[in-house]
């Protein structure tokens, strides 16, 4: 057993370092674009391999830990791989590989500039994501949370024009101000009351402070983790859509936004503990804010004609599913929320891939321009349909499971209002997502669509893979389910 643990720690360190080693190698290979892309792909493959190897150990019950340095006395940069982080790392690294394939097709098909910088910061962002996923205490989580914000800023502002600068300003402004103004404050308050920042199953705050302080603290966490995009701190997400589509796909449908809800789940499970969250009256109010975010963002999405903006607001809405699941303080809500990290990631990345493929192939960016496009781009639009059905939560796609567990959680907690919110939101999803491929397939095509074909093969391959992933998550949810059960002590 001890040999296995040493192996697990080595694997953890290797997984943490891989993207940070890959980034300078990409720079070294900048002279030859094929070699540069090969470095990205190899780094991604190595990372996926390491994370998969870790998965075996963690699923078997191992919790590899690692301490690097102590930047503040008694507060270390430390890592612990536990089920939730494992899940997040699996998804982020796996989808990075797919996105890398897609980006090569997209960036070349679209003749983007500064591609080396793009791939370097992409690798750094992934490095920050893995660090966040494996973080063993709040300080480490905070450090990588900020690193993720800063490393994605050059990606958001990639085009460097006025729109990109304005979007970048909103992005950085909201994410940094919420994280420094609220999250850091919450962390320091936690350190003062609990005397530690370690993630401990069952929480560290129980019995350390009066309930009103804990309530304020929970609110600081929920709003301070701006990446979870709970209203009114959601504006950065649509603003980030000025980025090239692969960035929107991986970072703003998967890595960055999931880092937010992942952090919320971590705080609820390991800092407060589910029982304590259930006791605090404030969590109920915050759950209402999340529920309001679900509905309002859906309605805003309905009114957006720009495809990426519509997807962005859909993401805002879906993220609050997970926040709501966490704040229900119910075992099934937690499991549903955690599974939603995975199923929504596959569904939404498929939609963004499709949006990018449509843009590269036809230059279209607005929903109203997509009538009849299904006949010209059947694979892309088919994948779009699968992705949106998964997000609505219909079988036979992965989203059905997470929505099932979330609904079960609302029932279990006796919160019928929230159950109604989830059901209404599903209906709204059908209107603003499923209607798009429907119209693409069943309306008469625009006359200027003659000769319109599919996007570059690499783009199409990537979105087929993620669409297949939506199906696979429905057929084989076991691997996830069993990984997550220890989270809630089942």
């Amino acid at each position, binding site marked *: 057993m001890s040999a296995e643990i040493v192996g697990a720690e080595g694997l953890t360190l290797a997984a943490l370092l891989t993207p940070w080693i890959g980034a300078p190698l990409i720079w070294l290979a900048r002279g030859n674009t094929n070699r540069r892309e090969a470095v990205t792909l190899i780094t991604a493959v190595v990372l996926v391999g390491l994370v998969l190897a870790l998965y075996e150990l963690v699923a078997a019950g191992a919790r590899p830990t690692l301490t690097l340095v102590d*930047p503040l*006395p008694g507060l270390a940069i430390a890592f612990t791989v536990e089920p939730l982080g494992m899940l997040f790392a699996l998804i982020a690294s796996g989808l990075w590989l797919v996105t890398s394939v897609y980006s090569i097709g997209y960036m070349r098909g679209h003749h983007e500039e500064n591609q080396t910088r793009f791939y370097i910061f992409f690798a750094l962002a992934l490095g920050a994501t893995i660090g966040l996923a494996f973080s063993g205490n709040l300080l480490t989580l*905070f*450090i990588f949370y900020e690193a993720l914000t800063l490393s994605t800023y050059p990606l958001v502002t990639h085009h460097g024009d006025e729109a990109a600068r304005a979007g970048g300003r909103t992005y950085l*402004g909201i994410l940094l101000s919420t994280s420094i103004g609220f999250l850091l*404050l919450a962390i*320091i*308050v936690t350190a003062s009351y609990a005397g530690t920042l370690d993630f401990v199953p069952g929480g560290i705050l129980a019995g350390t402070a009066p309930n009103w302080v804990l309530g304020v603290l929970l609110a600081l966490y929920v709003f301070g983790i701006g990446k979870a995009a709970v209203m009114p701190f959601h504006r950065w997400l649509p603003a980030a859509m000025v980025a090239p589509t692969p960035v929107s796909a991986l970072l703003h449908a998967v890595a960055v936004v999931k880092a937010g809800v992942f952090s919320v789940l971590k705080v609820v499970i390991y800092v407060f503990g589910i029982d304590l969250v259930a006791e605090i009256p404030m969590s109920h109010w915050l759950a209402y804010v999340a529920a309001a975010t679900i509905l309002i963002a859906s309605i805003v999405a309905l009114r957006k004609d720009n495809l990426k903006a519509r997807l962005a607001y859909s993401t805002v809405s879906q993220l609050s599913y997970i926040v709501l699941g966490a704040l229900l303080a119910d075992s099934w809500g937690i499991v549903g929320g955690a599974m939603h990290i995975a199923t929504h990631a596959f569904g939404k990345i498929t939609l963004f891939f499709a949006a990018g493929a449509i843009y590269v192939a036809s230059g279209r960016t607005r929903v109203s321009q997509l009538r009849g496009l299904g006949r010209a781009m059947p694979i892309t639009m088919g994948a779009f349909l699968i992705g949106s059905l998964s997000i609505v939560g219909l079988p036979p796609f992965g989203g059905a499971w997470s929505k099932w567990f979330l609904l079960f959680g609302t029932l279990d907690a006796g919160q019928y209002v929230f159950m109604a919110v989830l059901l209404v939101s599903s209906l709204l999803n059908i209107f603003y997502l499923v209607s798009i491929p429907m119209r693409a397939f069943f309306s008469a095509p625009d006359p200027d669509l003659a000769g319109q074909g599919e996007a570059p093969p690499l783009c199409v391959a990537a979105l087929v893979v993620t669409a297949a992933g939506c199906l696979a998550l429905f057929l084989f949810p076991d691997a996830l389910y069993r990984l997550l059960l220890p989270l809630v002590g089942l």
Partner: protein
Amino acid sequence: MIASNLPALQVVVPLISAPICAMLGRGRTAWVLTVAVSWTALAIAIALLIRVETGGVIDYEMGGWAAPWGIAYRIDYLNAFVLVIVAGIGAMVAPAALQGIATEIAPERQPRFFAAMLLALTGLLGITITGDAFNLYVFLEIASLASYALVAQGPDRRALMAAFQYLILGTIGATFILIGVGLLYMMTGTLNMADLAARLPAVAETRTIYAAFAFIIVGTGLKLALFPLHMWLPNAYAYAPGVVSAFMAATGTKVGVYMLARFVYTVFGAPFAFDTMPLGQILMPFALLGIVVGSLVAIFQDDIKRMLAYSSVAQIGYMALGISFASETGLIATIVHLFNHALMKGALFLALAAVSLRLGKTDLTAMRGLGRRMPLTMAAFVAAGLSLIGVPLTAGFVSKWYLVKAAIEAGLWPVAVVILGASLLAMIYVWRVVEVAYFRAPAANAPAAVEAPTTMLIPILILAGGGIYFGIDTEVTVGIARAAAMALLGTSP
């Protein structure tokens, strides 16, 4: 022999080198001497710090005269640390000075410039090392007079006005300190700080001591540019030669904060300052106002040098705030920030000195597209800027962590919110520069700028790198700050 006289050499070496410098005919020779002296001073300061760490407090009698009559130097953790900060910044700025003033000061005046710089270094080191209240005033005047001369040599004629303003306010401050020290002498018959601390409690409840306290606090407040006594600072920093701004911003106000801590905690003692006198209630609001107003005004400056000057007003607020908590955590925050802020402001102002050398100005429009033309200088600027904001893994984060922790320990949540809110203001003013430098194309008629000269670039990179290193490895800085804080509060381990 040399080892036992290190405390004296710390001050004497730069003091006697200054007139030699002035007599040298060429700027380059004077520069070589200045660099050698500043590095010697740093070596002595480090040696003293190590001796304090291993052997405890050093008491040194100048010329062998025993304490109440002769001048005594007394070096504990706090001033040993400040000595390292001052000498360290001197050692970083001196190598950069030759290129830094090349376009700003005529060659024939350069030897005198270096002489003034050494005198300023002497004064600052002297204030820090001495254990005698009157001797402190003498060194304060040496440092101040040298600083006025340094500011006045700025390339712009407005530098003269700025130096005059600085002279008037600085002299008022020094005079106030002298009056306060005189009143203390009248009541206790001693100028030695340790003796003062021992005899003051007996006469503390008199109006004379109250007045002495008020004079000294206002006087040091002027010297360290505590809001609203900061009026001299923005002009002085904005119009002084670039390297002088770097040197003064990173050392002058730090020594001011040191004086405040020394008078409050060692001479008067925390019970008198915070219980008998309402120092906490006075210092804290002004510190908070300084933080908010300084940061807000910085956002609206188009000259980046002036922007950093206002940022300094805000940062001084942070240090004063730490003192006003009268707690161990608060003092740790102040002392750690003395060091961390010296690193970041040193790097920022030196980077600006390099920009000014290449472009002739430092306003926002001139800095367009500079990220590509001076990549290393601007990278250092961004790294130090992140430290100013307080991003994790930078030195600024460590300071802010302790400051917020002190506020929460004192039960002052609103203060914690103000501290973190001001970080966001810092983010805004730092990011204005980043956006312009990295996203704007340079103006068509902009002079072709190349990377800073090596003698400037290396110190800039060392200071900016230090800002990151000491954000990750805080054992030395926080360890010393904790020991110094405990000594000041009398809770020595």
